């Protein structure tokens, strides 16, 4: 069903305004697989049969009516795209990334991908290296190491083309003669500068440029945030160079951990101002600068120590810090404490104090993913 004559229909459905991805995907599945109709049949239906068969509300009916009249316009746009060497990959096509489909499911997997370059990279084993735009030198160092390792193991590096970790991962991969998927925070027709820059690597098959957005969509914060989902979705494994306590990296990793994804976080050196150890606390696997898995000893020590000092009486974060001689600021220690399942926080005299949960006196299981 995904031959090129269907592309205008795919675009019309994929870009229905303000429809959730899942709703679009479910509609596609219903049309093509459950009802065994063609898109052509679907768009031949009138409003009445649409509401009878699919129970659309009036906004949805209106959207579909407009989409129907825009089909010829999408044909013009598809022609333009194909002429310029872009490819369209609908979610039911063989070329569609199995990793992406498997990770994001119908809920988040984009119904239509736009690509240029070697699309077989979508079938390769892949990693993503993520981190903030203003990452520290050591995080960039880590990024380069991981990129080099990835190239050595013939895997593909997924990059979001943002400043900092993203761009370093991409450049290092290409310098090491590796292969990369660039996931755009914008429509694929608005990336002329990038196509020029990576021209030779694209035509050699080392780079695939991919976008899940309307081809003409300009960059925006919203698209950049949404793009993170696709980066995580396209990778088999995720390496975190550096994360803040909020922002794209943080929420992406937190979401990934909830879904039991394989996530490796660089274990920070003492005194680093980031949230890497928090992610480790949340269950991510700590790795050293070379990407090798390290023991969670220190972390377990930290938990033992907290248990010890709290066993006699509740303490403030400041007091805990002083007693266990930990070299981080109090605010961050508070965040870490709140990750510990055996600790509860109480307000007393206008001060936050931590004490052990009663049950914790006997429980030894430190991690409960339900809480994260």
């Amino acid at each position, binding site marked *: 069903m995904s031959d090129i004559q269907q592309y*205008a*229909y795919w675009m019309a459905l994929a870009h229905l305004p303000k429809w959730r991805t899942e709703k679009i995907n479910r509609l596609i599945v219903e049309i093509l697989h459950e009802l065994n109709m063609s898109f052509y049949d679907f768009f031949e239906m009138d409003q009445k049969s649409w509401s009878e068969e699919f129970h659309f509300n009036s906004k949805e009916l209106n959207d579909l009516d407009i989409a129907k009249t825009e089909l*010829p316009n999408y*044909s*013009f746009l598809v022609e333009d795209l194909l002429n*310029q060497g872009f490819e369209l990959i609908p979610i039911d096509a063989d070329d569609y990334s199995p990793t992406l489909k498997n990770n994001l499911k119908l809920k988040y997997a984009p119904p239509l991908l736009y690509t240029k370059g070697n699309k077989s990279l979508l079938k390769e084993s892949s990693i993503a290296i993520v981190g903030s735009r203003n990452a520290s030198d050591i995080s960039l160092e880590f990024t380069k190491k991981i990129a080099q390792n990835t190239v050595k193991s013939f895997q593909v590096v997924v990059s979001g083309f943002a400043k900092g970790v993203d761009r370093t991962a991409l450049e290092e991969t290409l310098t090491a003669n590796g292969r990369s998927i660039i996931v755009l925070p914008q429509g694929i027709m608005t990336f*002329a500068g990038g*196509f020029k820059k990576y021209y*030779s690597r694209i035509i050699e098959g080392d780079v695939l440029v991919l976008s899940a957005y309307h081809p003409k969509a300009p960059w925006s914060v919203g698209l950049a945030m949404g793009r993170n989902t696709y980066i995580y979705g396209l990778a088999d494994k995720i390496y975190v160079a550096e994360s803040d306590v909020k922002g794209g990296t943080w929420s992406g990793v937190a979401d990934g951990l909830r879904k039991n994804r394989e996530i490796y976080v660089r274990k920070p050196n003492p005194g680093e101002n980031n949230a890497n150890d928090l992610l480790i606390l949340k269950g991510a696997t700590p790795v050293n600068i070379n990407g090798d898995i390290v023991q969670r000893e220190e972390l377990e020590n930290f938990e033992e120590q907290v248990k010890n000092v709290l066993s006699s009486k509740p303490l403030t974060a400041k007091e805990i810090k002083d007693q266990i001689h930990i070299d981080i600021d109090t605010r961050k220690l508070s965040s870490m404490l709140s990750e510990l399942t055996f600790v509860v926080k109480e307000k007393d005299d206008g001060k936050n104090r931590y004490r052990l949960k009663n049950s914790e006196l006997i429980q030894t299981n430190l991690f409960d993913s339900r809480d994260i």
Partner: protein
Amino acid sequence: MNRSQAEQKLQQIFNIDHFYDDQWKTIKRILNGERILLIEKTGFGKSLCYQFPATQFSGLTIIFSPLIALMRDQVKYLKSIGIPTECVNSGQEPEENAEILEKAKNGQIKIIYIAPERQENREWLEAVRNMQISMVVIDEAHCISVWGHDFRPAFRRIVSLVRLLPQNFPVLATTATATKRVAEDVRTQIGNNVTLIRGNLLRENFHLSVVKVHNEESKMAWLAGFLKKHAGGNGLIYTGTRVNTDLFSSWLQFAGISASSYNAGLDSESRKDIENGLIENRWKCIVSTNALGMGIDKPDIRFIVHTQMPQSPIHYYQEIGRAGRDGLPTRIILLYNPEDRELPEHFIKNSRPSMKKYEKVIDALKTEPMGEWNLMRATNLTQTQVRVIRADLIDQGIIKEVMYGGSKKYEYQYGAPQLDTRPFEELRNFKMAELEQMISYSESSSCRMDFLCRYLGDDTVNHCGKCDNDLQKDLHYNLSEDRQKKIDEFRDSYFPELEVETKNSNIVNGVASSYYGISNVGAAIHRCKYENGGDFPNHLLKQTLRAFRHKFGNEEFDLVVYVPPTESGDLVRNFAGKVARTLKFPLSPKLVKITATKPQKIFQNSVLKRDNVKDVFLYRDESGIIGKKILLIDDIYDSGATIKEIGRLFTKLGAEKIAPLAIAKTVGGDI
């Protein structure tokens, strides 16, 4: 809507009371959202088959047509009957086109005519995304097929578009000239479910004949006699080359017949003027390459004479199809010399550059994306070669045409297939076989109309009763001595024009004494330049002075300046000196080259030629140029890049007029 309802509307809107059966058959299906290929002869009324449905649809009808003249006529007509219609083309100012696109977006237009090339235009592609479109029409649809007589790569994108349109979106493709093979090809290209509607092809008012001759002079003489004594009304003379349009029209003028020449090398303003002149019968005839006549709305072209047989019967049928649309008797004559096969054979054999040149382009595009000009710079190929290669590489999916901001560049594709040359060979063989058919037509002794119609898939004619063979006339022409003398006289006074005039320069069109390569002049120049033959001989001087007198009469010039040579040598200086002495104008040696250039002849295209001479000249006495009329002398005029560059310099220095004079002009050259 049934037929009588439709015909009521037809009466109201178009003031026409009924459809022909094939028209209604087509329209009914179009209104039903079907795809149709309609093949009907010129004059059938194909355009009504899309104009009428266009008035019935809620949105816009887009008509892709390669014929600007036809667009203009139809827009005028449709506007006059109150149907909001516009055309967008490169002949109009960008602002005007932008305004029309805006109207189309706002739904203020029912029909828009655009050239196929427009499908590559950014503004158009952006605008069309926001138009409500109801139908797409492809006029001259035979241009889609390489098996036809006029394949145009610009139609490629229209084909891709039509394949992508929704299944029930009405598409009408029309042509007057398609063999079965072309029709089949067009049908498969524009998608599944295309219905073919085909009418008969007999043109009842045509009197076809072939006149057998032995040489070019005979053609010239026969033509003069025919136009003076036998040809009624006004018509067209088709030649095989641009050079010959000029030669034949000059000859006819020399023989006292009012004639003009036309070819694709003219600027659009001149072309438009000549097209108008054709409609107004300003001349007895227009001598043209086959660029003229397509889409011109003149019903009473009374005769068409070919001085060179076309490549195939389908070319021929298409070219003569422009005549006699009013149904009155029309004479269609081919002047045939068996040796004439050489020209089309040459075109067919050289229609594609060598494989090495394809590889050059591919290799260049592997380094970086390039536009056409940079590609010409990088490969040193002619513009025509680059365009042919580019179209083939796009067709085979090896390169793509990509937009970088506002400019078009070509990109090599990841995973591109190897260049496949088999289709080129197959096409070449096919065209050679078609040429043999054209020769068969010329030598045939049976009905000529039957021959052409059969070739195009219509075998209903048998005997037209009007052609030379049906009337049992065997036409030959032998040249008399008198006529030969007259032609010799003409040849002695015939000088090729150097067309260099532009708006921003004070340079005027000049003259050369002869064409290089088709006379002994070229050989003489070559001996002097490359075989140490000494100064240019006196007969060249005499001939050049005659050309000067012919073009400029007794006009006085203030200075004679010559183009400084690339390599050492005084040939041109000595020659210019002799010209100056004879004409008694002062000679100036002050024009020099400040940077070394390479010989222009090693560059195959005008971009590189222009780059090579840009800013390389200096005049040693700048104030000596102000207000002067300058005669500028060179030995061989090729692309004109050097002459134009010097014209630019002298204009900047304040020259009043710069007139070029060359010994010989090369045939061909691009742009």
